[in-house]
């Protein structure tokens, strides 16, 4: 079993107000090659941006979100979240260990993070519209 932190970001599209509400979700888990064995912690964080995200912004957002996770673990994302940049380019920009999803369990974990970031963002937008 290995410990990983699966991360996903939602909200790269501009809102009607002209800016970007971004929600990042980080999930700390223990995984075997094909199963999620345990989910230790989830952390979500919202960001507001006035311009489209660049790779370095994404790195920053992920690092801020992961900093609240107590357990150590390799950060895992989908390649698309990093604009399909090569692994060496992206991982050298992280302070922590970083990799793209490879195994079945890593893909399941990123899928989980994706659902969390998506639903959190939906909730956030709904609440903001009430104001």
């Amino acid at each position, binding site marked *: 079993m290995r410990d990983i932190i699966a991360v996903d970001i939602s909200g790269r599209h501009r809102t009607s107000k002209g800016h970007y509400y971004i929600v990042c979700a980080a999930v700390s888990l223990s995984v*075997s090659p*094909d199963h999620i064995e345990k989910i230790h912690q989830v952390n979500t964080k919202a960001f507001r941006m006035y311009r489209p995200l660049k790779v370095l912004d994404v790195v920053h957002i992920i690092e801020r979100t992961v900093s609240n996770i107590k357990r150590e673990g390799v950060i895992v994302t989908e390649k698309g979240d990093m604009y399909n940049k090569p692994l060496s380019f992206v991982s050298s920009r992280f302070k922590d260990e970083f990799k793209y999803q490879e*195994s*079945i369990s890593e*893909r399941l974990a990123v899928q989980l993070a994706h659902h969390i970031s998506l639903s959190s963002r939906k909730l956030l937008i709904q609440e903001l519209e009430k104001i």
Partner: protein
Amino acid sequence: MKKAVLVQRNEPESEEYRNSSRLQELKELAESAGYLVIDEITQTKNPDRNYQIGRGKTDELSWIVAETGADKIIFYNQLSIMQIYNISQTCRCETIDKFHLILEIFATKAKTKRAKYQVELAKLHYELPKAKTIVSLLKKKERPGFMGLGSYEDSYEKDIKNRISRLRNELGRMQKDYDNLRTSRHKKGFSIVALAGYTNAGKSTLFSEMVDENVEVENRLFTTLSPTTRSFQVNGRKLLLTDTVGFIEDLPHWLIDAFKSTLDEIFLADVILLVVDVSEPIEIIKKKLIACHDTLWEQIEDAPIITVLNKVDRISEEDLDCRISEIEYLTPNPIIISASEGTGIETLKKKVFSYLPVWKRKDVQLPISDSGMSIASWLFDEGIVHNIKYTDRIIVDVEARDEVINKAKAVERKLNAYGHSEDQL
């Protein structure tokens, strides 16, 4: 059997190892499509616009064809319509490329309606650029004022595009029918084990090593399964093992969906054996494993995966240990075997057994009568009969899945309540 000559043009300065493994893969593919490969020729040079390989090499090819009476020329490299035309003319032999060959294989493997549509769609994608070329070639020759031909040929391309969009719509509406298939098979009491992995990993070798010889599976029960399904037994449990097309290297995106639709058997399986050639360079092993996980992860549901590390006879023990630890995170339940030398097969079978649903073991008491006999013989078919005693009744010590035991118990009560009277049943 149709005879085929394989042709491969290699890029200058490409790795020899990769090239020969690609040619080996092409050979495997040709064989699984039912061709007898009678010759292989390769050439290292930049592509020729008209012939793909050099003109001189094409002449050499035409001599081989004439001498051997080959029915088909199969190129590793993708061919343009011009190249296909020129080569077929020069060699007087039908010429296809690897993608065409893959489509042929998929077409024979496509069992469900959905799979057939996917293959048809891929075929149209393959033809589309060729249709464009034909149209533009004809247009060049077209005389001004000669309107009829132009509009007719344009409609050829349009026709393909229409069929593509119609198929896409149909496919979108089609539901996957896995659930039905799975339930009906479980009713029959079989567990299915499927072989997955890249071409050349050793799936077919392992297949023949595992299955019980001379035992044909009753096909009518499993019309959805490929003919490459045979039964085998572990600790008395009957299992079906099914071989698959296998993953193919560097599949273009337009072939991926058709490919996935040929994997239905894998997604229906109770246990998946992911076969890996562990003697390949570590980077290639990793790349292939990642591609397998990518294809499998969304659809396997809860079927356990056993990773079969094959061809251990080709590497040293230290080398093996080193590889195993490097790929550990990608290899659920690793089992080390050599399919060709037959080592590790028993361990593998035991591992498969450990993942089968647990069966109950009970004594069933039946009257000595026609009904009692027929239930007993049904128990022989459905489960493992550990012991059978004939006293004033038939006592069967049987191990089977829940439904079978429950049904037998119900029949036991009913038969015993009615005593030995037959006609009331």
